[in-house]
Structure formats: structure tokens, C-alpha cells
């Protein structure tokens, strides 16, 4: 873990002791280290929430966007310079509540971005309201009588709407998570990792004692990530006491960038724009 230091900023993480965000932080730094990244080799985009506070603790190119909007910003960065490694992260409220539309539309695009959901099943930074992944009946500041809604199923949504790498990680299993992040970054296409991230302060029931005995690794269960039906089955099987982590689904499909002729030659950001000629176009218009 020594080398990881270079990815630290001068600020110390302000998360609560025991917060699952620490695990994600470690795993990200380890993944970057193992990938041999320099600080400028990756550009991260963050949302607003406890998850987004990560932006201050990890030394890479960063964009701390507004609440719910990491993916559009990340897409803009990727499209402007598709040579960049772009890693986006969101909270569950951020990415699956207010930002749900962007999530699904980004899946449809299969743009080459790694997307990490800090899924603590609660709104942390705003001090404990329900989130779209909170279980039914969850009592919170905004739902003192319990949540009525069925939770969002991010993995199932991603699988059916076109993401080409869909995984679940757990911040209590840092090495496993690190490996998922590495694979996701290496994957060409939209790679989603929903990370079970304990919020010890506002959602203590879904903390380490809950997850530790329940998680198991899909790779150990012999799951073939190219099997769409089985991937979806695992994703939909939410009432089981066993919680799979690992890669649910992974296939190879052309990315948005690959399908965009205008990006073929080189990234847009590498074009010299100092002297663009439109006179031919003007003449065509004049003659039309």
C-alpha cells in the first residue's frame, strides 16, 4: 500500500470512522497503482454526497460535479478526449435517485467510462434520509414510518439497458474490489460497479456484520459473466440471504467512441482550431 501514497492529497478523509468509503478509497488507489498509473493518467468525476467528498482525498485530475450529474460530465470529458481514463463515482442517491435517468441513458451508450456507485442505501451527507436503494420499510428522517417503494436494482437496470461490464463490489473486501476496479478500467465500454458501502452512522443495519457473512464471490460460484440470463437472474435475486459480489455480466460491444466517426482520427482535444476554414461550406450554401 506504500506506493498508493502518491494518490493522497493534503486533506485527510473526513468520513466517519469505519465508513465504507475508506475501503473504496483504498481500492481505487491500489487499482491505480497496480495499473501503473501516474496521477495524471486518470480523470475522475464525482457527485455530491459523502461519496463525492472523495474528490478532495484522491490526487488525480478531478471534477466534483453537482448532485446527480457525474455521468454527463464524465461523458463530456471522455468525448472531448477519449484517450483519457475516465472514472466516475456517485452515491446511491446521487446516481440512482436524482441521477437515474443519466445512468440508464449512459448504459445505452456503452461509453468507455468506469462507474462506481457508493451504495450505502441511505443519504449520508444530508444526514440520513432514505435512498432509492434503501429496503422497503426503511425508517429514516424522511421516512419515519418506513419506505413504501421497491428499491432500485442498479445491476439489473444496467444489464438490460446496455452496460457491457456489470459488477458488484463490497468495500469490506478491498482486494476483491481493487481487482474489479482494475478489470473495469481495462474493459472497453461502460463498466458499472455497485459497491456495498456501509454507512456506519446512518444505516448501521447494513454494515459489516450484515454483509460479511452474506457475500460470496460469483467467480467462486462458477458464474459465466457472458451469460446474460444468469447474470440477470443473479441481479434480480434480491431477497436471498446470499449476496453475490464479482462480475455479473461482461461482453464486448463497440463503444460509443468507436462508433463515432468524428473521433476516429484523434481525440477532439488534439485538433488545432486556430484556423478553421468554412469558405467551402459557405460556397455550397450560396450555391444551394
Amino acid at each position, binding site marked *: 500500500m506504500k506506493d498508493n501514497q502518491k494518490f493522497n492529497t493534503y486533506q485527510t478523509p473526513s468520513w466517519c470512522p469505519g465508513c465504507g468509503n475508506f475501503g473504496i478509497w483504498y481500492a481505487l488507489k491500489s487499482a491505480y497503482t497496480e495499473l501503473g498509473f501516474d496521477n495524471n493518467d486518470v480523470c475522475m468525476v464525482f457527485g455530491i454526497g459523502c461519496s463525492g467528498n472523495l474528490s478532495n482525498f484522491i490526487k488525480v*485530475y478531478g471534477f466534483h460535479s453537482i448532485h446527480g450529474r457525474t455521468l454527463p460530465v464524465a461523458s463530456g470529458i471522455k*468525448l472531448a478526449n477519449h484517450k483519457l481514463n475516465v472514472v466516475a463515482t456517485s452515491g446511491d442517491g446521487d446516481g440512482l435517485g436524482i441521477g437515474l435517468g443519466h445512468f440508464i441513458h449512459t448504459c445505452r451508450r456503452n461509453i468507455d467510462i468506469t462507474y462506481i456507485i457508493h451504495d450505502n442505501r441511505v443519504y449520508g451527507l444530508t444526514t440520513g434520509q432514505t435512498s432509492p436503494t434503501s429496503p422497503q420499510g426503511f425508517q429514516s428522517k424522511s421516512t419515519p414510518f418506513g419506505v413504501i417503494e421497491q428499491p432500485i436494482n442498479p445491476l439489473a437496470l444496467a444489464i438490460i439497458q446496455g452496460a457491457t461490464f456489470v459488477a458488484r463490489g463490497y468495500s469490506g473486501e478491498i482486494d476483491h474490489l481493487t481487482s474489479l476496479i482494475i478489470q473495469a478500467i481495462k474493459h472497453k465500454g461502460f463498466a458499472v460497479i455497485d459497491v456495498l458501502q456501509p454507512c456506519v452512522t446512518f444505516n448501521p443495519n447494513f454494515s459489516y456484520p450484515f454483509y460479511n457473512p452474506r457475500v460470496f464471490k460469483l467467480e467462486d460460484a462458477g458464474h459465466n459473466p457472458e451469460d446474460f440470463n444468469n447474470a440477470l437472474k443473479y441481479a434480480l435475486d434480491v431477497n436471498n440471504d446470499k449476496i453475490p459480489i464479482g462480475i455479473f455480466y461482461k461482453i464486448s460491444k463497440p463503444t460509443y467512441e468507436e462508433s463515432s466517426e468524428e473521433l476516429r482520427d484523434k481525440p477532439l482535444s488534439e485538433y488545432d482550431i486556430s484556423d478553421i476554414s468554412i469558405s467551402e*461550406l459557405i460556397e455550397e450554401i450560396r450555391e444551394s
Partner: protein
Amino acid sequence: MRVNDLNWKIGGEAGEGIMVTGLMFSKVCARLGLEVYNYPEYPSRIRGGHNCYQVRVRDNKPVFAEKGLDILVALNKETIDLHSNYVKEDGVIIADSHLKDYGLSERIFYLPMDDLALSAGGKITKNNVALGASFAFLSVPVENVLDTVRRAFRDKGEKVIGMNEKAVSLGYDYVKENFKGDFKISLKPIDDKKNMVLTGNEAISLGAIKAGLKLYAAYPMTPASSILHFLAPLSHRFKILVKHAEDEISAILTAIGANFAGVRAMVGTSGGGFSLMSEALGMSAITETPLVIVECMRPGPSTGMPTWTDQGDLRFIIHASQGEFLRVVLTPGDVKEAYQLIQLAFNLAEKYQIPVFLLSDKLLSESSESVDDLSGSDLKIERGKILREAQEGYKRYDLSIEDGISFRAIPPAKNGLQLANSDEHDEYGLVSEEAHIREKMLEKRFKRRGLIVKEIPKPNLYGDSDADISLIGFGSVKLSVLRAMEILKEEGVKTNFLHSLCPHPFVSDHYLDFIKKAKRVVVIENNYTGQFAGIIQENLCIKIDNLILKDDGRPFFPDEIVEKIKKYLRS
């Protein structure tokens, strides 16, 4: 005999191709070297409503749609009901023969459009029958019309071209043979001139391409959609990623991300879409990421009147998004200004690392004008403090830089690490809530105002120095006002006009002298509350007593302005 002074209009049902025919009419004229202004009207539905298209033709600018019509082409009865009142004494109505049954006025020339179209090859060519007929009245050689029609159907194959040519000729000949009166207007070519016809949105798009646009993100919305439609087919040719995003929120954030990554990116929308963008606007400001926003106004509130015109979003644009920050609002008055100001928008956005608006409206965006040449309006690209490589010790939000504008290092520049942070932040971009840092960062972001105001375009002054009435306006009111001034001058009324190209930031010096010297100031705006007048009052503390306002979705017609001004003079 009047030469090169014509007001032509065609009307029919939505879906009948009124727009295409109108545009062809104007292109024939423009190719003669004449100046044209095209004003389309259509309802917010695909079929069933009334469409019309008006072409004003003159020798010289200013040219703008006027009320009195010389030729009205009526494809249906509604056109006659709605517009025949405006046909001048010596004008003519070219109506489809089947309208005969209604027993309409005498000035009507019945043209068997359907019959001629059928003999040309199909009912669908009906409009071209009317087109040919129109030019027969105007003594324009049929070859000029055929030339334009050929170009218009260029990609449709020989058969279609032939049909439409025939339709033109049949219409043309029918008039030559059957029109017994003598029509008092003719169009004569002007030597060595050949104009093209451009809408405001086309000019904006062209200017943006010229300025190095690399990413355009938008969600369709009238009257901004035609920018998307214009740019999308050019995306491969000019290496511009054109993204129809899932909504306006995504569009603006994609553009901000792209600007952050070092390209010039733009969004275009109308007020409703801009409402959705307002949160992200502030993010562009606090992260000091350049951004160009084209906002094409239409009448609100809410969905309002989607296909009509209005200038009601000015204040909204100026104050949108929580908190306070600098922005620039540019308001071109015509197609050439639109072409130039969009280029300026990109320069200002990058040099000052702020959001810059190009504020248009349905009138400017969708009306078209004859334009000779645009190249004179090109601006040099200025990208400001942009770094592809950075030194060690680089700070994105360096507070020690005098003018407040610190260097933008573009990823993946080594040493250029930074956090673009929507939270208030320190010099590296990392979050900070300390009072003194907050103060300094706020000051940093506002400091550049001094430089900006030196660079924003001064309002243009038109007209007489010893005017009886001094008009002030911004944006698309320009052409109508200029034409009205010309008419007033003919009637001996002296006016002048200060046309603002940048109502915000408001530079008092640009207006003070004009207002102080004026005998009587009148502010003219296409809205209900007189927003620009309010801005003048706020900044100059001078009461604006006279307002000419209109907010029914229609632009000011010069005749209306003339009338209002005369009323002021009488009072």
C-alpha cells in the same frame, strides 16, 4: 413602376411546404443580388395549422418584414381571411382556383394550381406553380426561377427536378397569358452581386464551426433545434461531436465536461430547456470552466407559444442559478452579428473562463436574411490562459495572479492536476469553507469584470444626431427599428437608435451619453415588462418613461413602430 421593392407572402396549411416555397422565392431574389428578409409563421403542430412565409425584397438593407403586401399567394381560404386585409391597393392575390367559390375580392388572380400541378406531374408541385406565377408578375426571367428550383431538388433525382421545373414554367406561362392588368413591381438584378440566404441559427452554427466548436450537446427545442439539425450532418466533416442528449441537464454538463477537457463546446436551447440548465450554469462559473450557451427565446411562461417570438428571458438569463457570478450576454440583431458574436462568445468564454450567452429569439433564429459575405466578420481565435503542459507547483486557482484569471491546465497535462470543484475551494480546487478563502475566491471570480467590460461590444448608434426620438433596444428588434427609422425619415421625423449587443454586464458609459443627450428616450422590447428598461434604470438611475412593448408572439413590424413613435411626437 417600382423596382426591387416587394413584399410577398405565401400562406397555406401546415405540411403543405409553405416554408420551402418561401425560401426558394427568396433565393431567386437573393441571387439577383437583392436584399431579402424572410419571416415564417407556423403553429406548434405538424399539421392542420396555418403556415405562412413572408419575403420582403429591397435594393438595400435594412430589410424587414412589413405589413402591407404586394403579392399574397393563397393556397387556402384561411390565408385570404387572415392576410388579404394587408394587401395593398395595387397588390395582387394569387389564389388557387378552387377558392373561386367563396366569391372573394376583385384583386384576386385565380391560378389553377392543382390542375397545372397535375399536368406537371403531381399535386405535390403545386407550390412551384405558385412560385413560377409569382415571378411572372415580377418580370423575372423564368430561367432564374428554374435555376433555384433545380438546386433545391438537386438530390431528388432527375424526375423530381423535371416535374418541379415544369410546374414553375406552367405557373409562369399561365400568368403571362392570362394576367391582363399591369403589375407595378419588377425585380431587376444588381450587377455582380449574388447573395445567399441564412437564418440566424445557420449563422450561429457557421460562426461556431469557424470558432472551432468541437462538441455540441443539445436536446431539441424550438426555436433552437435547427442548430442541431444544421450541425449534425456536418459532424464528420468538421470533427464535431454532435450529441442529442437525454435532456438539457445532460447537454450542459456534457458541454462543461468537454470544455474542462480542453475543447470548445456549446449548448443550444430555448427558455424551458435553459431552466433545466440553470443549476449547471453555476457550476461552470465556480469551476471557472468556459461555456457557450445559445438561448433562443420564445414566449413564456412555460411551454407558452413554442413557435413564436419574444424577448422575455433576458433577466432570467442574467440572474439564473443560485449565488452570484459573472456572465456575459450577447444579443445580435441580425444574421451577420449572430455569426460574429458567437465567435466572440467563444473567445470571451475561454479568455475569462466564464459562461457566455448568445441570446437569440425565434425571430432572429428562424427568419432568414440575404447575406453577401461573412468572412469580414471573422474573429481571431483567442483561447486565453490555456496550458497543455504545466510547471511543477501549478495551482489551478492561483490567487496570486493579478487579474484573477489563473491558468487552465488541460488533462492529462503532467503537473496540471486540479480539482474542478462545485464546492467553494482553495487554490488547488480542494474544498474549503474558510471565510478568508471564500472571500478571495469570490473576489478572484469577479475581478475580471474590469477586463471584460473593455472587450464587450459597444452598442451601435444609428440615425441622426439631432433626433426627436431616441430609441434603445437589444437583439432582434434591430432590423425592424432601422426600417421604421427610414420610413420616419422619409416623413421628416428624425430618430436615432442605440442598439445593444450586450445588455449584460451593463456598461453605463455605453449608454449614458446617448440618454443624456436625447430629447426623448424610448426603449423598445419584445416583452411585457420592459426588462431592458429596468436594467437601464437599475444601472443609471434614470427613469425610462417611454416604452414600446409587444408580447403577443409576433415581432414588431416597422409600420407599428412608426405609428407608435408618431404618437409619442404628438403627445
